[in-house]
């Protein structure tokens, strides 16, 4: 890939304190991700892949090391600025969907827009468009508990896309879905990556899903132990 460097991690270290003991979740990780990449982060549980994703997703800050997102150092930003970045640049998709209960698909999709300065009239249109782009046309006013798992995950993807982020982070997005639905969701990610040039990072432990990625990194004990790319 000759594209610009989109994410640059330098000697990233994360240490958690659990009572008296210190747990080193990430050890000295350095890695670069280019714009338009489709990256899979793999590894057994406890390998630090969730921690890495949280830091890349600006939900957490590294203990040591630097993290550049689009050439901006974000590892030193305060909570409010990190929230702005999450709102503008990053979309999350979680294993458990994380939709608001007793709320319609539309309201869930609108959620990120509430925290940006988009006028209310526009938020509806934007949210409608995002929902139709993930194939949920006509389902906008269904409540989340009336939707199937696959549909719920699509709502989550629509929500992640609604602010036109440049980075999409998915943490085990197919973990709660059957294989067929899971594959549809993965295809959706693939298309988004290919057609809209959104950088996608998938955290997964399923090799089959990881295979669609251009690049794969394997984590163990907080370190990158293997790197692959097509």
């Amino acid at each position, binding site marked *: 890939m000759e594209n610009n460097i989109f994410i640059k991690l330098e000697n990233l270290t994360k240490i958690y304190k659990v009572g008296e003991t210190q747990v080193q979740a990430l050890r000295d990780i350095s890695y670069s991700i280019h714009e338009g990449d489709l990256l899979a982060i793999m590894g057994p549980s406890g390998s630090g892949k969730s921690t890495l994703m*949280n830091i890349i997703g600006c*939900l957490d800050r590294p203990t040591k090391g630097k993290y550049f997102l689009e050439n901006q150092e974000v590892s030193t930003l305060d*909570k*409010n600025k990190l*929230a702005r970045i*999450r709102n503008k640049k990053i979309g999350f998709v979680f294993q458990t969907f*994380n939709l608001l209960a007793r709320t319609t698909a539309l309201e869930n999709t609108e959620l*990120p827009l*509430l*925290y940006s300065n988009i006028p209310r009239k526009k938020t509806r249109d934007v949210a409608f468009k995002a929902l139709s782009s993930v194939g949920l046309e006509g389902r906008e006013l269904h409540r989340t508990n009336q939707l199937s798992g696959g549909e719920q995950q699509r709502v989550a993807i629509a929500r992640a896309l609604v602010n036109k982020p440049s980075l999409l982070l998915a943490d085990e997005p197919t973990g709660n879905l059957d294989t067929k639905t899971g594959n549809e969701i993965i295809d959706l990610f693939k298309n988004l990556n290919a057609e809209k040039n959104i950088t996608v990072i998938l955290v997964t432990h399923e090799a089959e899903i990881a295979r669609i990625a251009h690049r794969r990194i394997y984590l163990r004990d907080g370190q990158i132990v293997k790197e692959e790319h097509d």
Partner: protein
Amino acid sequence: MNILRTIRVSLRALNRNKMRSFLTALGIIIGVGAVIAMISIGQGAKQAIEERFNSMGTNLLFVRPGSRSFRGRHGGGGTYQNLTPGDAKAIEEKADAVQYISPNVSSRAQVIYGNKNWNTSIQGVGAKYPEIRNWTVEEGIFFDETMVKTGQKICVLGSEVNENLFEGEYPIGKIIRIKKVPFRVIGVLKSRGESGGWFNRDDMIAMPYTTAQRRIIGRTDRIQGIDVSAVSMTRSIEAVEQIEEILRIQHKIAPGAEDDFHVRNMSEIAEGAAESTNILTILLGGIASVSLLVGGIGIMNIMLVSVTERIREIGIRMSVGAREKDILFQFLTEAIVLSILGGIIGIGVGLFSSKLISQFAGWKTLVSMGSIALAFLFSGSVGIFFGFYPARKASKLDPIDALRYE
């Protein structure tokens, strides 16, 4: 996030949990309702008392005998009758701030008409008494100055006496007997519509004080008091001073010596009564605001539960870009919206229950705009005060922990 949007988000969240929202607001509803109802009782009582004093005449002054010590023994007020018809005459002639005067004496007696009898208060008064006390004659006439001067055996009945003696029979011109003396009824007073209290003004008979002195009391040189009306309310203080001056001369009181009478000003008495009802209002309102406070603690309690229950939601909101202050304002607004909605409903409940109270307990109640505004403001600040801690707790959550919370 702007305020309107925050309010909309809060309303949605509250709407999602209607029952819980209602129960939370219930504390405030009851609190505000209680404050408004209680204050309405206090203010109603105040108004009732003020009206009562106004109906008695606000420029009314009472001259009563004072205390007098006799060989070192100090008697209480009114123990010695030292006011004379001459004193009354002197006041009438010399005090220009005085409009009307009425010397008065009173007694109780058994009154007989036909085979009916009734024990009532006999008021010997002057011809101007109805003007001084705001009395109206419903039927017949009140006695005039000549009748007083000549001491005629005539009387005017209070409405209750009329009902009890005549039972619907036309009373004017009839003869009743008081202490075996026949009196002709020349008028009936209009009912004052008040029963109980310290003096029932319908249960009495008025007659010229001269007649009462001679026929009922049996002593003509003394009167028990002088009721005076000042020219106007503003001149009532002046009238008091003039009366005091005149009476000191009449009674030959040396300069520096104490008065052997006293003059009481009706507006002072009214003020005193109003003051005590104010205290009543504050007391009732104070007790009721305790329930408002309890309602506020209820809000805090539920908001804390709500924050815990919605940790996941908070995490989701944070992950899509909600800042600390967005979350803080959302939960704070929820608390404020709840307490203000509760306040509005509470105002309705308060209005309704004060109406019920006045209907069933027969108390006069008065809901003022001031008490509504006070209750409303108070409920709003309860929301801010008790909503802040849970809201802050919510905003300080770590997004990762919140997302992972089960």
